[in-house]
């Protein structure tokens, strides 16, 4: 496959793989009704993964990037676990087994960022659904807090309490994105350290912004299935495949 290995973004040459050398992440994952989740991502042509029949996984994450090829910035992500593109329709048991084996991807549904360079790079290279927003991230206390505002309007607040230390291990996942009618798949690997997690542990407040309304359509806010904080994570993003 003929892939780009370098891109020019705002006069800077960005080479593949794009590396993040230091970032912090806080994630809350929710089991939500699969039909409602499927409605939100229908235009991508992907199917949500169903670890439990009728239930999909929606993750809300906020990130602070400090040292990386796209500069320092804050980011908020709304993502869904999805079945890989091109998988045959399957029984509930098979679909649940796909999740258990980790044979799934992550569809990036919303990805507000607070800096221009990463906005242009993320849209231009991978078709990530980045847009500019105000994202306050506070990691100084015993937990992590994030407040998301868009066009001066409050969207949501998310607090994540610290859990117990859990073993950190590297992982790779295919990230799917859908922009201008094109579906892309990007190999994304990460090596975290300082990982803590717990069941529940997240507090979400939703305002009236369209993104908040989307999340309400999934039955949020509700108890998180699992939440985690990652003190440091290194990541690498390959060039996307257009599907």
């Amino acid at each position, binding site marked *: 496959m003929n892939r780009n290995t370098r891109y020019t973004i705002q006069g*800077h040459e960005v080479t593949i793989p794009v590396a993040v050398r230091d970032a912090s992440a806080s994630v809350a994952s929710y089991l939500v009704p699969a039909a409602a989740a499927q409605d939100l991502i229908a235009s991508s042509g992907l199917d949500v993964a169903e670890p439990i029949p009728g239930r999909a996984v929606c993750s809300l994450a906020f990130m*602070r*990037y*400090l*040292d990386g*090829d*796209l*500069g*320092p*910035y*804050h980011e908020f992500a709304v993502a869904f676990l999805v079945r890989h593109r091109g998988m045959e329709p399957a029984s509930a048991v098979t679909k649940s087994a796909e999740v258990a084996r980790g044979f799934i991807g992550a569809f990036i549904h919303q990805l507000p960022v*607070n*800096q*221009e*360079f*990463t906005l242009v790079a993320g849209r231009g290279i991978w078709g990530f659904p980045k847009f500019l927003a*105000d994202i*306050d*991230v*506070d*990691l*100084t*206390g015993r937990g992590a*807090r994030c407040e998301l505002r868009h066009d001066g309007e409050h969207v949501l607040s998310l607090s994540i309490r610290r859990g117990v230390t859990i073993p950190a291990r590297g992982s790779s996942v295919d990230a799917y994105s859908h922009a201008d009618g094109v579906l892309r798949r990007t190999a994304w690997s990460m090596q975290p350290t300082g990982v803590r997690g717990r069941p529940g542990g997240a507090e979400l407040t939703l305002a009236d912004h369209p993104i908040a309304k989307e999340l309400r359509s999934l039955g949020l806010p509700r108890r998180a299935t699992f939440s985690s904080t990652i*003190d440091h994570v290194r990541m690498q993003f390959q060039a996307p495949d257009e599907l």
Partner: protein
Amino acid sequence: MTATPAVALVTGAASGMGQLAARRLAAAGASVAAVDVDGDGLAATVLRAPTMRSWECDVTDAGAVEQLVKEVESAFGPIDRLVHAAGVCLPGLLAEQRVVELDRTIAVNYLGTAHAVLSVLPGMLDRRHGEVVAFASLAGWLPSPHLGAYSASKHAVVAFMEVLAYENRGSGVRFACVCPPVVDTPMVAGIRARDDAALAGQRGIEPGIVLDAIERSLDADELFVFPGRGTKGVWRGRRFAPGLIWRQIERATSRRG
């Protein structure tokens, strides 16, 4: 949580604590003036950070610092936060230390702090708003063998910041004097390379822990910041049982031969 400052000036921004402070502020959306004498390091700090700009400036030059503050304020607007992290550490036994090294340590660590702080302060006092963060060190309370020059310069910073905060209490300006133990930074790697005995085998704490502690102190309007577990205990020990601290230092250094 304190609001992210709109405009910040960070010295020592080419590496270590200053670089991390600058990146955190820029990530949060602040306009950041990244200042250092190391142009290559600055270029790495501001790379692809649209809200950061670098200035090469030597904090030992009072006139240059004053000019710098004018330039930064005309580019970005009034400075809401100063993070003064520029510093040097030239370890060695005092009896063997060259006078130029003592001079340089005082010039960068103490006078550099005074120059930076006094250049931003008048504007902050006029606006009745601002945050002044200056890096001293736990060595600014605890005289340490092989770190005499450094320790003396940081004692001066502690005294300077304490008087300054007292004289400007109720002014609307907040002060933080940061007194970390050994932190895992390029400066400490430099000390280790030059005179390993100076660190007595201490492992450094993570720089992020220091910056988190600064934010909490600014929130609480507390002057002295003692990041890291046990740091405040060591500080208390020095104040109330100085003999005990010296015995511990002796044990730590003799254990290493």
